[in-house]
């Protein structure tokens, strides 16, 4: 799958209409702590995130919930795809494996749904269902394409810093 196809797929995803975006924003830290606690209990954590990356993972979880609350307030398909791609590229660069998201996304969904009104849950679930469907494509595209910085950075295109 190409990034253009991902953009099109993201355009098919309806903007989540939730009334709880403020709740999500206010409780991002709590939800991140709960998610981190769940992941820290796993015996295979080092296999998922690489050695010594617990703090990096914790930071990612906080940003994840803050970003989900942003999506609930303002959904823009292009920046959604670019942001997820940026996240995948950044954390894989730090030793995270694709399997991490296979574990993290369902756990995050479980945590977040515990904090939402029932009518909002369906809206948020569509985001997670979409992410779980396309996460392998994000990983593949992050490997096969130049990064955002490489696309906009003229110095990068001129070669190594020698």
């Amino acid at each position, binding site marked *: 799958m190409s990034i253009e196809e991902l953009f099109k797929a993201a355009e098919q995803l309806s903007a989540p209409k939730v009334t709880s975006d403020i709740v999500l924003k206010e409780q991002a830290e709590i939800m991140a702590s709960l998610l981190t606690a769940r992941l820290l209990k796993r015996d295979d954590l080092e296999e998922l995130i690489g050695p010594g990356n617990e703090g990096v993972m914790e930071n990612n979880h906080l940003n994840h919930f803050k970003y989900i609350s942003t999506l609930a307030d303002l959904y823009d398909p292009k920046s959604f795809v670019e942001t997820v791609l940026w996240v995948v590229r950044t954390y894989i660069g730090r030793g995270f494996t694709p399997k991490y998201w296979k574990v993290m996304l369902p756990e995050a969904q479980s945590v977040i749904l515990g904090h939402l009104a029932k009518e909002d849950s369906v809206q948020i679930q569509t985001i997670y269902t979409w992410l779980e469907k396309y996460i392998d494509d994000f990983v593949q595209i992050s490997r096969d394409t130049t990064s955002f910085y490489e696309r906009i*950075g003229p110095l990068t295109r001129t070669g190594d810093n020698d």
Partner: protein
Amino acid sequence: MTEVSRDMKPEEIKLAKTYLNHLLQARRQDALLCIVESIKNGTPLKDIYLHVLQPVMYEVGRLWQINQIDIAVEHYITAATQLTMAHVFPHAMTSKRNGKKLVGGCLGSELHELGLHMLCDIYEADGWDTYFMGAVTPDASFLSAIEEQRPDLLCLSVTMMFGVPETRDLITSIRTKMKKNCPKILVGGLSFIMSPHLVTVVGADGTGKDAQQALNVASRLVA
């Protein structure tokens, strides 16, 4: 947005790599001196900003993303570049004033102020009077600064997507309060480079991929 800044010249690529290599080896003074030397040799301030410092900072972002440098190095290079800009800024104050005024700031939780700082310096070099408020500027401060400074142009910078809804809400507040006296509003930063469509979503009048593009757009908006 059709204006695209020109490519880097070979001497700019060489200078940018020299500057970056000095900083990667924690040689702040050497880095500063090579920029000062270039200015003394006649390189315009705008070219130093757009074709040396900005590409260096994008490269620093890339190196951080692929984990070749850590956050400490990124912050060191950012701080060193702010020092460099402060050192060469007097060169921006030599041009004639054009009677136009700009207020700029990063709102909410936005900590990435370097891009807007560069933009304000470049506008200053172009003859504008600028009122740069830096990172994490509260909404109320934007409103009071607009009322007190009466700018022709307001520039808002957002790197992280978290700040885009805040930008939309702030622009709505400003337009509601200022009505016909509302300055033209430009937005910029990584979020808007990623998705230019967001410029319309937040209710801004325009954007620029870099300070030169923003200056071109502002020239049309503020006659």
